[in-house]
């Protein structure tokens, strides 16, 4: 069953001449881990905003579930709230409180291995810890779809690898539908069941990845990476 469905969706921002998303149709299955990749400005973040409901399409339709949550590129944590309160934010807005809230927040903090940081403030955290808080906050509201907007882009390779494993573990545990936006091909191959390549607002190609989890850099992994890379760097309109 498709949980997200785009039908001929276009979106052009104010003061822009070319569309950020140009007549895109695509679907994401319930429980799927899909990765949107592409060069900067290709429209992948706009796709994420359309799924999140933060933007509306100019033309076409977007079918999306009501409960969509996002983990942002730099965490987007509220600096005046402790780690616990950041993770509790969506639950409090939804009217949850007391033991139930505490149990949910602590469970997410445990899953992201940051329980001991619950009283700290975002300014006291490393980049990786912030991302963990952002993911815990996004999962705490029990969304149907979790959107990850380049959450690993500013992290060192070791932290990135650890977080990849934690997100995959969370995905397997919760069976959530996850859409990850990235510009790193290796990351998309190590995480996604399907990699969707975007260029100039359009979906250029889709690549099913059939490697078993946890994915390690073996021959199969490199074959998929090379296949996507060839398409990624292929020039559609070579200069004359």
């Amino acid at each position, binding site marked *: 069953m498709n949980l997200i469905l785009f039908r001929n969706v276009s979106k052009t921002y104010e003061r822009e001449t070319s569309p950020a998303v140009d007549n895109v149709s695509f679907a994401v299955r319930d429980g799927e881990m899909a990765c949107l990749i592409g060069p900067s400005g290709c429209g992948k973040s706009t796709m994420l*905003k359309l799924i*999140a409901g*933060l933007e509306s399409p100019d033309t076409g339709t977007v079918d999306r579930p009501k409960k*969509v*949550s*996002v983990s*942002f*590129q*730099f965490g*987007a944590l*509220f*600096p*005046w709230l402790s780690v616990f309160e950041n993770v509790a*934010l*969506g639950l409090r*807005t*939804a009217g949850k409180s007391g033991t139930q809230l505490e149990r949910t927040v602590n469970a997410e903090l445990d899953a992201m291995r940051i329980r001991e940081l619950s009283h700290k*403030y975002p*300014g006291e955290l490393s980049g990786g810890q912030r991302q963990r808080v952002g993911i815990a*906050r996004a999962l705490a*509201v029990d969304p149907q779809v979790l959107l990850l907007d380049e959450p690993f882009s500013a992290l060192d390779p070791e932290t990135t690898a650890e977080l990849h494993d934690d997100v995959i573990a969370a995905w397997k545990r919760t069976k959530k539908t996850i859409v990850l936006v990235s510009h790193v091909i290796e990351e998309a191959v190590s995480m996604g069941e399907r990699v969707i390549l975007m260029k100039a607002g359009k979906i250029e190609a889709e690549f099913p990845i059939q490697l078993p989890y946890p994915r390690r850099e073996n021959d199969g992994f490199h074959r998929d990476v090379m296949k996507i890379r060839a398409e990624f760097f292929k020039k559609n309109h070579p200069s004359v």
Partner: protein
Amino acid sequence: MFLTYPVSVRERLYSLLIGPLLVAAAIYLVVSLFQTEVAESGVATWHVLVEASFATLARITVAYILAVVVGIPLAILATHNRLLEKILLPVFDVLESVPILAFFPVVVVMFVRWDFMEGAAVSILFLSMLWNIVFTLVGGLKIIPQDIVNAARIFGLSGFAYVRRVLIPAVFPQLVIGSVLAVAQGWNLIIIAEALHTYIPHGNPSQDLFGIGSILVSAAANAHNTVFAEALVIMVLMIAVLNLFVWQRLITYSQRFRFD
């Protein structure tokens, strides 16, 4: 940077005592040098001066609270969308540029008619503070990261909850800085705000409000050098204590609210 909290003992002493005392001494010296006509002191005792300082502080506090209560919604309104921003910001800019004292005779006459002189003082202090608050808040509201706004939307914050739980905390550092500037502006205008009789047609000093500002004016006019210097020392010390125990602490605390 002048807005950091003094941490060492020397810095604390300087902030609390040495700096203000040096300023007060310098003022006293200048007063003594240039005001040659020496009259009798004894118009005001220390007790009266301290009471007057607190009366002045109360006036400034009321005006400041009003400026914050009015300034926050004005700033939010002015940054709510592009159309409102285009309309309101130029209006605020003009209002801010008109000298406060140009309003004062009108304001005073109005409050004299109502026989409510405190209203005149508080109004002029409020007007002098308001734009400091509004413009620093506008600056703060415009630099809230888009991801923070999006996160608030994703997690269901809207309306008043969004204002209370996102916008106000997000601009808290700017609110503190704006408050420091606003209250400083209040202290600057206190003499004018309390010595009302100069703005009342055929006014006399009995129409002045009791406060440190009006005592300074009265002492200067009557060449009561000692009272003048004592009043200044109390005022400077009060400002120093407020700075050390309120503003500098708030500035330090507000760092937690800053976005990286």
